[in-house]
């Protein structure tokens, strides 16, 4: 709620908030700026902030060297696919936890979260061997499933907290009118939970996009996403700050843009039931 404050206080607030915001954002801004410099200017002392010769050379070098489009496509498919698949599995589970709770509901929820604590490096060999057996190595399908499983606990929990906030009376009323379970979920719950579902999807998409262990270790060519793309630009020989910056910018730009457009949704929806 916007409270009435004196203009002076508002000015102070604004100044402070902008200063802090820019400070936090600065590393990203600096990376983006550096990506338009030449390698020489990127390490110039003292550093050049804006007064350099803007160039797109780094981007063309990166584009020439790697098939950026394919990496990007894979990132979108893997993050998107795992989000959709995750929702399909999680919505019914969260629904039943929220509306037909039993004594074990809380235990199940917490157990689900605890599966996320399995250290990934410790199970690399088992999973890799399993993927060979199933022929899933370097396949998008395999990664979609893994990403879905990794984030499933978070999705279930988030959805559960949203569903719980939906008043039970509405459901009772619908049931009186003879709505089936399916109709109940599809036509009453889901629309009411749309904001919650949307922010769940967003969060899951971001987490899957940024996951860098499995996406790197279970792929080679066909399914390699942007996390693998960036692994070929870290510390090559000689000067590389500008090229690294260009590659970094290309890796984070799509998700950054998505995040910016949906920040209102994120701010409103990321509650995990924290708000009473």
């Amino acid at each position, binding site marked *: 709620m916007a409270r009435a404050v004196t203009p002076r206080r508002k000015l102070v607030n604004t100044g402070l908030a902008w200063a802090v*915001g820019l400070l936090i954002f600065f590393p990203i801004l600096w990376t983006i700026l550096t990506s338009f410099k030449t390698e020489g200017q990127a390490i110039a002392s003292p550093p050049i902030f804006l007064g350099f010769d803007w160039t797109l050379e780094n981007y063309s070098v990166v584009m020439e060297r790697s098939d950026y489009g394919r990496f990007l496509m894979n990132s979108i498919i893997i993050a998107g696919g795992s989000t959709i698949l995750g929702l399909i599995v999680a919505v019914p589970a969260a629904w039943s936890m929220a509306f037909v709770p039993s004594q074990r509901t809380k235990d199940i929820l*917490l157990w689900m979260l605890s599966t996320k604590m399995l250290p990934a490096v410790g*199970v690399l060999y088992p999973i890799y061997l399993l993927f060979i057996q199933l022929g899933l190595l370097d396949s998008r399908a395999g990664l979609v499933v893994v990403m879905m499983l990794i984030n499933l606990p978070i999705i279930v929990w988030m959805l559960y907290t949203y569903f719980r906030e939906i008043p039970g009376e509405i459901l009772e009323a619908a049931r009186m009118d003879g709505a089936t379970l399916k109709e109940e979920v599809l036509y009453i719950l889901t629309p009411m939970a749309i904001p919650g579902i949307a922010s769940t999807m967003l969060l899951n998409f971001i987490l899957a996009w940024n996951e860098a262990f499995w996406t790197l270790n279970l792929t080679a060519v066909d399914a390699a996403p*942007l996390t693998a793309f960036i692994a070929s630009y870290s510390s090559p020989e000689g000067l590389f700050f500008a090229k690294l910056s260009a590659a970094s910018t290309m890796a984070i730009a799509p998700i950054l843009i998505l995040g910016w457009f949906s*920040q209102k949704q994120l701010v409103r929806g990321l509650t995990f039931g*924290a708000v009473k």
Partner: protein
Amino acid sequence: MATQQSRSAARLMMAPAVVLLLGWMLVPLIMTLWFSFRTYLPLRGGDQGWTGFDNYVRFVTSSAFWPAVQTTLMIVLGVLIITVALGVLLAMLLDQPMWGQGIVRILVIAPFFVMPTVSALVWKNMFMDPVNGLFAHLWRFFGAEPVSWLSDAAMPSIIMIVSWQWLPFATLILLTAIQSLDSEQLEAAEMDGAPPLKRFAFIILPHLARAITIVILIQTIFLLAIFAEIFVTTGGAFGTRTLSYLIFQRVLESQNIGLGSAGGVYAIILANIVAIFLMRIVGKNLDN
């Protein structure tokens, strides 16, 4: 109240999620347990049979074990303290009326969208490099000797990098919680002449308790497993070897799957201890 029929329907609806997660947990877990009792050296002819508890004893008596546990907990704790403290302050600031609130919010949450590898690379090279990094330039500008961050202050540097990544998440959740705070209550307290510090301690903080527990729970889950940040920046040197990094070294660098798997089992145990501890607090906080 739920009928018998809706109960079984509910169970059915929960089944896919539960079965999938059970599989995702059990299959690797059983394979890890199996490997952990075997001498499994891929570069030396593979699986060489049972070895009892040797791997477990060896892993836990290794000079690297306890420091690694300590490092893990320090990183988790350090990041939690920083992100929660700064997150509360930032959320309160962002809740104030101001010009350009939307843009400031975007700036603040942006780090959350940066993949860990990229953020580690950017911090390491463009900021913390002792020769060409921005910090080095800044230090020289003020006439100071540049610090080589990732060797002389490796732990604080890593904690800082990770905190930068997670601060937006904490801020977001805390901000949502703060926005739901009853402003009348605050204003009434203000009217009564309660000083800001008191208002913060007795009204705002209790209101945020639940959100803070959520932040702690979710972040702990992710922080126990951080890997990319360490892999890229220090490679586990200078006292930054966490338990999961130690396992990585055993499994991939030393190619001793048996030993690494035993380490994996320890990591699961540690995670569960932390989890139970957390669940106690969170569970209480979530119930009411």
